[in-house]
């Protein structure tokens, strides 16, 4: 084998190894985006999901002593009960959008390991410049790269 062929072969081995890493990474850490309706239709216990919806009013319960946070995420039709250990994150409230990451427990609830609260559609500015400007304000808010907070 001449020198050039050796280099190409070496490069291919490295690229194959990297390709395998990517493949392994994807299969180990895929998180499926679902709505409450999609999750209720076909829940798979133990699979990683990212569930997005609105925190259903009247369902948010926070027990400081045990750090138990429970609420239901809804998409208007279906609703999924969610449990999380830890204080509610910033920007998290009833009637607002939230995305949770975790797994389906198999016992009828979603076990969230990460809550991402979003600035909600329901947002109202206290000094709202004008009614027509409201949607625009929202847009600008979304333009900010960091309009979510994380809690683990």
């Amino acid at each position, binding site marked *: 084998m001449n020198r050039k062929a050796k280099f190409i072969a070496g490069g291919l081995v490295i690229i194959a190894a990297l390709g395998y890493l990517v493949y392994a990474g994807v299969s180990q850490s895929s998180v499926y985006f679902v709505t409450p309706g999609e999750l209720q239709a076909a829940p798979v216990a133990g699979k990683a999901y990212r569930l997005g919806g609105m925190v259903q009013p009247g369902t948010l319960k926070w027990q400081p002593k045990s750090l138990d946070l429970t609420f239901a995420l809804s998409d208007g039709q279906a609703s999924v009960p969610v449990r999380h250990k830890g*204080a509610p994150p910033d920007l998290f409230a009833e009637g607002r959008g939230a995305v949770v990451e975790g797994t389906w427990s198999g016992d009828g609830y979603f076990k969230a390991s990460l809550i991402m609260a979003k600035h909600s559609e329901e947002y109202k500015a206290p000094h709202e410049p004008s009614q027509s400007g409201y949607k625009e304000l929202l847009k600008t808010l979304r333009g900010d790269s960091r309009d979510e907070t994380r809690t683990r």
Partner: protein
Amino acid sequence: MIPEFGYAASVAGLLLAVYGSAAAAVGAHTGRPKLLESSEWAATGVWVFVTGCMLLMVYAFLTFDFSVRYVAVNTNRGTPFYYRITALWGALEGSIILWTWMLALYTLIVVRKYRRRQPEFYPWVLAVMLGIAAFFLLVMTIPAPPFERLSPVPPDGRGLNPLLEDSGMITHPVALYLGFTGFTVPFAFAMAALIIGRTGDEWISITRRWTIIAWYFLSLGLLIGGWWSYHVLGWGGYWAWDPVENAAFMPWLTGTALLHSVMIQERRRMLKLWNITLIIATFGLTIFGTFLTRSGIIGSVHAFTQGSIGQFFLAFLALVLLGAFSLLAWRLDRLKAQGELDSILSRESAFLLNNLFLVAAAFTVFFGTIFPLLSEAVRGVKVSVGAPFFNLVNIPIFLALLFLMGVGPLIAWRRASADNLRRNFLKPVAAGVVAAAVLRLLGVGNALVLLCMGLVVFVTGTIVLDFFRAARARRRSGDGWRAATMGLLLHQNRRYGGFVVHLGILVVALGVAGSQAWSVQTEATIDKGQSVELAGYTVRFDGLEASEESNHGKVTGTFTVSNGGGPLTVLYPAKKFYPQEQTPIAAVDYRLGFLQDLYLVLGDFGQDGSHATIKVQVNRMVSWLWIGGLILTLGAALAILPDEKRPA
């Protein structure tokens, strides 16, 4: 009046940029100096008008001119003075002004610096840079006009996003954008090189320092962004593989590859095609990053839309790539390598591997970031890969890069002899192995951490060895140790500046490994007078206090921290209540340390002040990231010093 003036200034800037770009190109092509001269005036005009836009906007912020929608959205009467200035880049439209202004500034410097020195490159460089400036001015005019009027004029504004009221937000975007726009200079020179057919090393040696400057600011921007995330967002981390972070990280990776691969071209006349491809990729990624974060396509998984700005950036990106690669294809015959690889054990191949891994890292980050789009397009399922993917894939790549960081600078060019290898690497390898063994005996069980720390010691060993030998050689010619050290740093500033940057990266690597492996946290709700314990610290809750700040209300907790030896400090994590937000925002408090930070987040509290939910984190070695950043700054400063200082 400000909206009208501002709009007029951006339109005037746009017209001048378009004219200047065309005039420079035509002037260069037809050899008419008058035309070229007029394009220089156009470049100055662009800078003046963009500066005008910026000053007008700052003035509007300082005078609370809420007839400008951008001002009304990003400030209110309670916003503190400094944040009223930095609110300029608090959201999309203003950031575009800042970006365009920096680009115009770089263009002006290029005009001043190269009009006489590089008469052949310079007109085309000017044409490319003004063309890019024209695009940003177009964005300022059509899809994201910063001076949009708000009518009727509201009595007060909405206020800056509270998360942006932080010192990190003053410097982070500035550093990041100086980095992003900085890569325009080498890109423009590369394009000019293709156009005039001088595809040798000239564009590389002219832009070497520009590339380092851009790279340095990008690095600084990333680190300050990490610091902001760490001390503002309250999750105790500094990097989340968020698409926004990835967008800035990708050009950093390809830019780093470029900084290394140009050395191979200078020395061995190889990789000409590759270097041009790398600068195109780096510049393209700065545009792609803006597209990614501003178009909302990634957020689209949960329905964010941003109007037409995404389409503008995508179209521009397509234009840039098409143009650049067409030029490349046209000049392909002039980009043949003159040297070739002699051996796998050579500096060339170490650098080649370095490039392969850096580009692979950029590719995997790219792949992971756009994965939700890919999976939706291909399989119809929305799937994302999160931090575990990026960590799994990138940790081996970065460990390999650490290893190469030790090998590359010392291994011989062309073909390393057994003697060269023994002489340069025996001691550092031994040091690395011994260090890993000692850490293992001290109880470090994590194999990746051991490997990382062993590699860091190995690389440090190679740097110390090389520096020591070079200093000793200088001493033989009569210098004292101090003079020898300074002489090396100042006169061989390119090599040793690079080494200092490497040391900074090593310190950052230790910080990343240590913080990922050893940080611990707990969360608990405690009554007044009760304590939480974590890692030898006792955190006692002493009470709550409410206060009224200039633009928000605040509930502050008092927590007394002690360790075995008695009281240590008092920390005040708080919750801030901004009128423009419906829910409070946590303000963390921390005690930074060399080996560990104590970090408190107030989660929730009883309305009567009787109890509080507190998250306590002991974050290990996070400070090393910031210290590494300082070392990196020093190294980059050395590397930027002019080459001319080198003695004959």
